[in-house]
């Protein structure tokens, strides 16, 4: 069974030889091939090389095209700052929609128009060409809350929910259409799965989440499913207050960050939801040793049960010791999903 088959089999409820392994690596992957992060984020060949090298070295079951939250915003004309050894970032005090009225004239950029989205799509295509038969290829898009924060400025968006809810809805509407097009192009390029990152959604609390964010996330997820791809939901941070709503999104994989216990996720999301996580990326993966990684992932597996994929709560930090990633791999490689079979 290769990585791609393993993940697909688990998701479809078929038997698998061992637990799938899908940690998020970005800066770590760039580091593995000695690339600087600016190149990793802006040149799809560097990204594909880093992802494939890392996935093969540590026997991950997938490769992924996430690098920073600014791809879509960059193509919308936002001011982006690039760093040699850090993810690109949006310059918040010059946000693209600092003036709300600019939304009316903002055109959805063509994902294949030669910008940063296009670069992400090229990364998908190259990964599919090189390893698409053995490893699952996962594309990436931003969720409504995260992308709205990127375009409007996160501090301002938080106030907009109260100051001008109609604007927020218009903005989310725009974003969903843009993200569906971006997802479509990645799926056309061969992506098996689309990762949906909606980091800022963990900040707004359950009421705003349910009323504003959820309906748009749902629309996006349903749209991607209709295109025939899988969806992995990744909301960093403390999602405990919104776990129940997240379950109703019907994503194929839900990541939980270390602040949201898997046990609680399992309880709120039912026995069938595939959960991924939630090892503390910093305290355990980066600062811990192999023994701590092993005992932590074993406990995660126990809490999540057999609908489980091995990974950390969020990105594996770049200076994580390789032994710790090896330990993560070794646990996955030596355990079947059903603890009784292992």
């Amino acid at each position, binding site marked *: 069974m290769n990585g791609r088959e393993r993940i697909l089999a688990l998701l479809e409820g078929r038997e698998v030889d061992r637990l799938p392994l899908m940690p998020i690596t970005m800066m770590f992957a760039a580091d593995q091939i000695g690339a600087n992060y600016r190149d990793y984020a802006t040149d799809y060949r560097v990204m594909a090389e880093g992802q494939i090298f890392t996935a093969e070295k540590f026997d991950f079951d997938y490769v992924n095209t996430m690098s920073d939250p600014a791809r879509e915003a960059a193509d919308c004309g936002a001011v982006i700052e690039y760093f040699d050894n850090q993810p690109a970032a949006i310059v918040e005090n010059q946000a693209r929609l600092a003036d709300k009225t600019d939304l009316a004239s903002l055109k959805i950029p063509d994902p294949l128009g030669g910008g940063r989205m296009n670069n992400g799509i090229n990364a998908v295509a190259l990964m599919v060409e090189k390893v698409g038969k053995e490893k699952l290829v996962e594309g990436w898009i931003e969720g409504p809350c995260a992308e709205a924060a990127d375009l409007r400025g996160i*501090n301002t968006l*938080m106030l907009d929910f109260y100051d001008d809810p109609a604007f927020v809805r218009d903005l989310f509407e725009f974003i969903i259409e843009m993200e569906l097009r971006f997802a479509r192009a990645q799926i056309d390029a061969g992506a098996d799965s689309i990762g949906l990152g909606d980091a800022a959604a963990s900040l707004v609390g359950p009421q705003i989440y349910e009323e504003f964010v959820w309906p748009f996330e749902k629309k996006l997820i349903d749209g991607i499913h209709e295109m025939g791809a899988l969806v992995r939901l990744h909301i960093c941070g403390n999602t405990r207050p919104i776990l129940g709503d997240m379950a109703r999104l019907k994503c194929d994989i839900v990541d939980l960050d270390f602040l949201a216990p898997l046990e609680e996720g399992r309880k709120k999301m039912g026995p069938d939801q595939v959960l991924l996580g939630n090892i503390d990326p910093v305290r355990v993966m980066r600062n811990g040793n192999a023994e701590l990684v092993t005992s932590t992932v074993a406990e995660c597996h126990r809490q999540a049960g057999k609908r489980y994929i091995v990974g950390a709560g969020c990105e594996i930090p770049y200076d994580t010791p390789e032994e710790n990633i090896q330990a993560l791999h070794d646990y996955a490689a030596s355990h079947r999903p059903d603890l009784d079979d292992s």
Partner: protein
Amino acid sequence: MQNPDKFTKEKNLTPIILAMKDLKELYEAVITGDAVTARSITEEALSGETDPLSLVSEHLTPAMDEIGRRFEASECFVPELLLSARAMKGAMELIQPRLLESGVELLGRVIVATVKGDLHDIGKNLVAAVLEGGGFEVIDMGVNVEPEKIVETIKEKDVQIVVLSALLTTTMPAMKTSIEAIEAAGVRDKVTILVGGAPVTQRFADEIGADGYSDSAVGAVAVARKAVGA
């Protein structure tokens, strides 16, 4: 922004009742994040007999304490926190010049900064707002701030407290670098240095030679007050 008609009715009330009623409402307005009301009440109060300092210590600070408590208890979330901070800042803008005029000494001059390499500023902004509400003069240096800039500002502006925020494990070392730069410039004795942000711990604060740490914005004010002996 302000609605001039909104308070005409209340202007007919006797001043004493107005003052008492309004001031309770100032607390409420900050809690609910109603910036317009918070400003109007503050304006009204300042045009009367009310002591500007008591507006801060008896109404604004308790309101921010309460909203901070609700946030810690997951009773409210970041949008509500930022709304309250905005309401409080609006009131402070009116109060601060009056404080200076009346010769009341602010508790101290503070610079707040997110350290070099780090762009997270929601927590830093909240700490800045709550410190302002707590009676400090705040100089917000923004994000991704070079240690040299911090040193320069300490020297130029006669700063007593330095608040450093970091949200990334990779930028926590920049807190240490900042403290070292302050030491190297010979101004370490002049300032109290506080550090915070989600990944920062008391142990880390001790290790890098910071003077104080807290895991919340309200806690930051308590440490800052202690530092100036208030």
